[in-house]
């Protein structure tokens, strides 16, 4: 039988990837049918990326809300294992990310740093999943005869505007504390460097992470920010390097259902400042529980 021709790299016609979005564990295209072109530093065409719409965002919120009950109820230990699994999957596909980021114009050093630190960061937060409770919980010595304790619970569905200039690490650094705390999220990827965010969706898709826990959209901040901020079924919004006016708009729109708003501005994600259990606690609500303690006979025994 004759050997199939053109199997060496120089002669072979490359199979191009369609960059789609990641919603509810699936990879649909934007419902709007719109796209924008991402070019390399030299101006070569790299990809037609989905320009997501309000409807895409709403679909993603629905997926995130549906995933919230299951994800928040998972054992913290299990969440930790899944975050670790994401790191494992990313490690295995390192070269693909480096390749993609250098094509988009990052230096090789920067691209390596983005991927390596993203893996480290996922492991960092994998470890926190079953530990931040101990840091933020209290047993409160109330004066009445009650047992009283306070502990953190996830805020709910979080919308995220990832930083523009740190295409993978910025996204991972904002996502990991959200999901390690049991929340689910919808992330708008860097519009400048969206490719690695889309590919990261594929990593998530193969990591035992239930569909809908993380949803990744591509598109433009100016168009989508109002919806990220005013959706009534989103409980919190986290911003990064958006402009003052964008942040003000987000805060104003968040008032409708009193979203929690956090901006992580000028954070150099490659430093130690880019990771902290306090990022997890930002998106936790403290719940205090009371129960009476029986206080009769025999309590005075001094054994």
């Amino acid at each position: 039988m004759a050997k199939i021709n053109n199997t060496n790299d120089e002669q072979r016609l490359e199979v191009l990837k369609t960059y789609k979005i990641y919603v509810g564990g699936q990879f649909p295209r934007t419902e709007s049918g719109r796209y924008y072109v991402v070019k390399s530093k030299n101006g070569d065409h790299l990809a037609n990326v989905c320009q997501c719409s309000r409807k895409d965002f709403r679909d993603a919120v629905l997926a995130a809300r549906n995933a919230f009950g299951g994800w928040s109820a998972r054992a913290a230990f299990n969440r930790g294992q899944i975050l670790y699994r994401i790191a494992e999957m990313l490690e295995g596909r390192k070269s693909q990310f480096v390749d993609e980021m250098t094509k988009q114009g990052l230096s090789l050093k920067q691209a390596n740093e983005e991927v390596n630190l993203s893996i480290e960061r996922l492991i960092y937060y994998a470890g926190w999943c079953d530990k931040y409770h101990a840091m933020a919980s209290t047993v409160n010595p109330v004066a009445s005869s009650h047992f009283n304790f306070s502990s953190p619970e996830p805020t709910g569905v979080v919308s995220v505007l990832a930083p523009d200039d740190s295409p993978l690490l910025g996204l991972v650094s904002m996502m990991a504390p959200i999901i390690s705390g049991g929340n689910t999220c919808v992330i708008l990827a860097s519009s400048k460097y969206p490719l690695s965010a889309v590919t990261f969706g594929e990593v998530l898709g193969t990591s035992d992470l239930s569909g809908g826990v993380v949803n990744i959209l591509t598109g433009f901040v100016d168009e989508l920010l109002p919806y990220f901020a005013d959706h009534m079924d989103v409980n919190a919004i986290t911003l990064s390097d958006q402009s003052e006016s964008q942040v003000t708009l987000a805060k104003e729109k968040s008032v409708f259902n009193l979203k929690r708003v956090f901006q992580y501005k000028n954070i150099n994600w490659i430093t130690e400042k880019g990771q902290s259990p306090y990022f997890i606690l930002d998106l936790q609500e403290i719940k205090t529980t009371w129960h009476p303690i029986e206080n009769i006979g025999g309590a005075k025994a001094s054994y």
Partner: protein
Amino acid sequence: MAKDDKKDNTLKLKFDSARNLAPAPESKSIAKIKPQYELFINGSFVKPESGKYFDTINPATEEKLSQVAEASPADVDKAIKSAKSAYQKVWSKMPGKERAKYIFRISRMIQEKAREFAVVESLDGGKPIRESRDFDVPTAANHFFYYAGWADKLNYAFPTKTPRPVGVASQIIPWNFPLLMAAWKIAPALATGNTVVLKSAETTPLTALMLAELIQEADLPPGVVNIITGAGETGAAMVSHPDTDKIAFTGSTDVGKIIQKAVASTHKKVTLELGGKAANIIFDDAPLDQAVEGVINGIFFNQGHVCCAGSRLYVQESVYDIVLRKLKDRLETLIVGDPLDKNTDIGAINSRGQLETIQKYLKIGVQEGGEIYQSSCPLPKKGFFCSPTLFTNVSQSSRIAQEEIFGPVLSILTFRTEDEVIEKANNTPYGLSAGVWTDKGSKIFNMTTKLRAGVVWANTFNKFDPTSPFGGFKESGFGREGGLHGLMPYLHLD
């Protein structure tokens, strides 16, 4: 037992005699209310720039108690500048242990004057003396005492972080727990090194002004705490003032949203303690008598003027009839009347405006098909009073099951399964508190975990303590007051 009683297996109790107790009024003579109060700014009492005053009345008699100054934006500016100057020159430089001593001193002085505070609180706000005497005032003193101790221990609160005060805190409090809310606001702010401008509510300014006098007597450095009086405009001026670094507000969700929007373009730190529509859930295995007591306390404590009041009762169908009968019986024993009488269970509604709001909801409840049941206890001829009220035949979508009434009105609904009641209880934009009654431990923890609320009471209700964080999920606001978590809203963590 008579024959008729045996038939429906109930024992008709007679409660009329309980209401015929001899009057047992607390003496008013201990309350030294001045005819007029000024604004407490920079350590002294000053007249308002506007020269305007407004009356504060006793809601139980509609008689004028005193008149208090109306702070204009110019007065607000003066108060905030004095707070800023005290922050920069004195309070932020003072070692924590010295701050602590001032706060401890305030706590002890409240204890000294506890009876006077309690009487004035009941006169000005209408709450039963038993509550102001046994709950509001001692809890306020305890709150200062608790946070005083934190002042020199902040470095232990947040591992790896260096806490730093925020600056000038503008604090706006409601009329339902006037002194206690002032304590909840002022104590953690001072302990963490901030200075304060506090505005009391329009209808209940007197105990906050007494607290101002006490603070003056305690020799707190001038400007560290400023206490002003006024209405919505005064509060708006505080919120928008450029030297306000931190806003702490307790009140309605509507006003909370206005505040949040007003500061959207600034970096002011905000905490909001807003409305609620708490679900109180009785399972068929609950100790029913205890549960009924908890339900009564949950909705009628402080005339129902409580943001975390258990205003939606969910009863498991199998015990609905018996719970309803017990509730009605218990309702009959409640004494509505003179707030200063030690036998009074339910005092006066705080203001005419609030009484009208409650009456509006009673009409809505009936119009929407609810069945109303009210106690037969006669109401005083004068003053603002409302009979304790139960509504049955309420649907999940009824306005009286969705909206905060802030009065002695309980909506009663039923459920069959645990899943159903979790869904119903969480189906509200609010998330401040919830209650669950069952004898089964594992069920308690399932419920307390799944209820989306900041405070969950299991087999108890409406309990508060300085060490216990309080605050809401969702549209009930954000930030916590009380406990370790109550420090966070007043600190930057570097």
